[in-house]
């Protein structure tokens, strides 16, 4: 089954351990990872995306798509506000994300942040990934041992959602393990 997942951890280093574990599961043939990225919510509520240091273009795309994905994982209400909330999302090492969606309504921004908080709390980090898995237990078991909480939605569910379809995020998730130098394992 082809799914999008978010695995939430209490800190960034645990999230990178989770990312590494995800790619190890891929290497063992237990799952197939098509792409993954790590995001953080700081103590003020802003979400940041770890990207390659010199990759602001990717950071912008990632901001919009990850906002949409987080909203979708938060639940049906979150899907509608996830992309709008992307304005508050920055690339941690790539600079501030450009405002590529309509952010004129302040209440929408606050609502988006509020909705995605159901998935990612203040100070938490998450691995988001596009994966194929025949069973959910390999990811659930491994991430559980690392202290991660797994959220999962079928890719087909999101693709059937006409609203979300504009923000299918596969194109910006790293299709290989990328760990910034700030997070040595």
């Amino acid at each position, binding site marked *: 089954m082809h799914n999008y997942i978010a695995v939430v951890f209490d800190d960034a280093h645990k999230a990178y351990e989770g990312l590494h574990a995800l790619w190890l599961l891929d290497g063992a043939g237990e799952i197939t*990872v098509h792409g993954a990225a790590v995001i953080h919510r700081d103590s003020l509520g802003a979400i940041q995306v770890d990207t390659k240091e010199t990759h602001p273009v990717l950071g912008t795309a990632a901001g919009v798509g990850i906002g949409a994905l987080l909203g979708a994982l938060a639940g049906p209400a979150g899907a509608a506000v996830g992309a709008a909330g992307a304005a508050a999302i920055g690339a941690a090492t790539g600079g501030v994300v450009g405002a590529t969606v309509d952010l004129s309504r302040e209440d929408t921004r606050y609502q988006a942040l509020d909705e995605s908080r159901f998935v990612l709390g203040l100070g938490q980090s998450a691995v988001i990934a596009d994966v194929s898995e025949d069973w959910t237990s390999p990811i659930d078991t491994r991430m559980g041992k690392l202290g991660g909480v797994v959220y999962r939605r079928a890719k087909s569910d999101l693709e059937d959602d006409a609203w979300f379809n504009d923000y299918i995020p596969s194109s910006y998730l790293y299709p290989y393990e*990328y760990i910034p130098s700030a997070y040595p394992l």
Partner: protein
Amino acid sequence: MECGYEANPIHVEKEIMANPAPSAARTAAETNVKDALGHVRTAAQELHSAISDAVAKRGGATKADLEVFGQKAKAVAESAKNSMGGQSDAAKKHIKDAVTQLEATQQHVADGLKTSGQAFQTSMRQVLADARASVQNISEAVAAARTAASSKTK
């Protein structure tokens, strides 16, 4: 961790011979086919990583970068075609799509070599998008191959 594999079909063949089957339940032929696809995936990942780094670097990619990417895209496409034998229909479809995208990558490389300035950087972004799409399809092919192998052993 960045991928460090060269997209060379001959290298792929040598690697396949050097890696014995991980499971006794799989035939040697099946394993070689799956390993070949795995190596194609690694090569495509490396190509995408190199292109994204070149696009992002200060001053952008150079024409010398672009020439190298064109050669690598061609090598990965050849390896992908060679890995198709013995795969499931689902995996074959993804590999074919990946080959089409790698050919588009080569075409955008050729276009980029004829341009300069903003048009050149636009071509580079198209090359990056094509390469990302090809990695996605090869990865989907790997998933399809794993699912097929898994259902055989049940």
